[in-house]
């Protein structure tokens, strides 16, 4: 079995304020693995510990306990970093350089031998739609342009693993779509992608797997199908509903909404057969039965709320 691209086992990070002040646990025993070729979303509300985890993964900070591996190597090991493209949250740059010079600088640092570096850089700038601005100093770029440049530098070393911390942050809807398409193209090339984002509708479209953390704890992990199937509901529309029947379906966890001469019943998919039979037997005419899938956003909010309640 191939070594996973990313492995976290019981990773804990505690920040200690200086001079013996309070301790803040940013991560508490996080464990997960990301297989090669997988597109995995790392989700959580602000302050959940996503960026801390990514910083540990990149070797920028050290975990207080637990182990983490990237392609089987310690985070920060150059053998691992040779295979990673990283986009930090709020990508910072040398403002006095232009895009071409910045990418040339990063290419030299990547140690990648390229026959025609100029062509590679021009191709990457075209890919992120910055080819028209390659001579402009980065200090004059808009937030969205900087983000695109950050994505270009992440792709520079032809990495096997892309770690993207909020890749669509600061982009307009068209820019977001372009980044989404780019990620899908990279996915088709077989790249492993580990990304964090707050735009869950996008995550739903591009990711195979989801890991949700909250307040430093991992609260849910699963495939996208599992996430969306969780709590899958159906909606039944009937012509009429007696009070006895309404009482009976509500006992099965359904919600009832009356709209003119129709009644909408929303309930868990597991209950649909029993409820439909009950409705038929009770004299209601079932006009339609529609499966209603939970969105990732709903699942996320539910999971985080459950975590908060705990």
């Amino acid at each position, binding site marked *: 079995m191939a070594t996973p691209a990313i492995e976290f086992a019981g990773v804990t990070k505690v*920040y200690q304020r200086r001079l013996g002040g309070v301790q803040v646990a940013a991560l508490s025993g996080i464990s997960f693995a990301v297989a090669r070729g997988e597109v995995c979303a790392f989700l959580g509300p602000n302050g959940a510990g996503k960026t*801390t985890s990514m*910083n540990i993964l*990149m*070797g*920028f*900070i*050290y975990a207080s306990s637990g182990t983490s591996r990237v392609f089987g190597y310690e985070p*920060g090991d*150059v*053998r691992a*970093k*040779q295979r*990673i*493209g*990283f986009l*930090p949250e*709020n*990508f*910072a*740059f*040398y403002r*006095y350089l232009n895009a071409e010079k910045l990418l040339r*600088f*990063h290419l*030299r*640092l*990547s*140690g990648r031998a390229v026959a025609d570096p100029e062509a590679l850089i021009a191709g990457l700038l075209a890919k992120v739609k910055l080819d028209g601005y390659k001579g402009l100093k980065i200090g004059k770029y808009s937030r969205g342009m900087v983000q695109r440049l*950050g994505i270009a*530098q992440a792709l520079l*070393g032809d990495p096997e693993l892309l770690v993207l911390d909020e890749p669509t942050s600061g982009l307009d809807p068209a820019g977001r779509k372009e980044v989404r398409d780019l990620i899908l193209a990279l996915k088709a090339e077989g790249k492993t992608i580990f990304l964090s984002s707050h735009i869950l509708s996008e995550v739903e479209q591009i990711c195979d797997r989801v890991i949700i953390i909250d307040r430093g704890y991992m609260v849910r992990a699963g495939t996208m199908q599992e996430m969306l199937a969780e709590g899958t509901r159906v909606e039944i529309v009937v012509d009429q509903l007696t009070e006895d029947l309404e009482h009976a379906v509500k006992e099965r966890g359904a919600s009832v909404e009356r709209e003119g001469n129709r009644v909408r019943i929303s309930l868990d998919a597991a209950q649909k057969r029993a409820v439909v039979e009950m409705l038929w037997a009770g004299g209601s005419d079932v006009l339609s039965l529609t499966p209603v899938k939970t969105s990732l956003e709903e699942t996320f909010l539910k999971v985080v709320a459950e975590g908060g309640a705990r």
Partner: protein
Amino acid sequence: MKIRTIAFATFGSFLRNKVMILFGSLFACIVLLMMTPLLGYKAMTNASNAQQMQGFILNEVAMVVSLVSGFGSLLAAWAAADSLAGEMKSGTILAVMARPLRRWEFLAGKYLGVLMLMTVYVVAMLGVTLLLAWLGGQGFHTSLWTLLVYPLVRYAIWAAISMLLVTMLHPILVMGIVVVLATLVQLFGSASSPIPAWLRLPVHNVLPLTGLLSEERFLVITRASLRPFPWTSHLTALTYGVDYALVCFLLAVLVFQRRSLTRD
């Protein structure tokens, strides 16, 4: 290759740094300001006061050289502190360190970038010294390598000390400590210091002996010639300086290896 890339980028960033431009402008202003009395003395020189005026001029030159030399130590310390702290504060270090680059390579690149800047400074300093001496009617009848190498090694020490401190402390605090250290070096380094020997000697052994690396050991500007020193003396003094800088740099690498690269 990677170290060289970081070094050139660091040097390039210094040339665009606003504080550095301010430093450079201040340096030029001070030199120009000091030249005014120098040229005044020269203009007032006549047959009857030639010797007295020559003395004034050479004292003036010695003062400028001493000032510029001391200024260089502060510049080296500030450049080293800022080159690392600036990257961490702005967050540019994250994209750089995401590359297959070891932490010591990054630090070595930063340090070399600072030394490149200080090489430019030392060459400029020598240029100013020669210009002022020429204006004062004196010429250096000696090899000038000591005037290039000695200050550079001295600045390498201050840069390494500053780099070590900035891996642990805020750059402003680092500059404060460097100034205190420089004062202590003067205080403890002098044989005529009022500090008792039992305290002076141990502290003196820990502090950098920058006096040993001062070009003033060799050059008496008021005579504008080099005192003869055997090559073994040069070798010992320079090896001491390089060793001191290396120890500080290695300690900086050790501390930097374990520290967080983020602003948390």
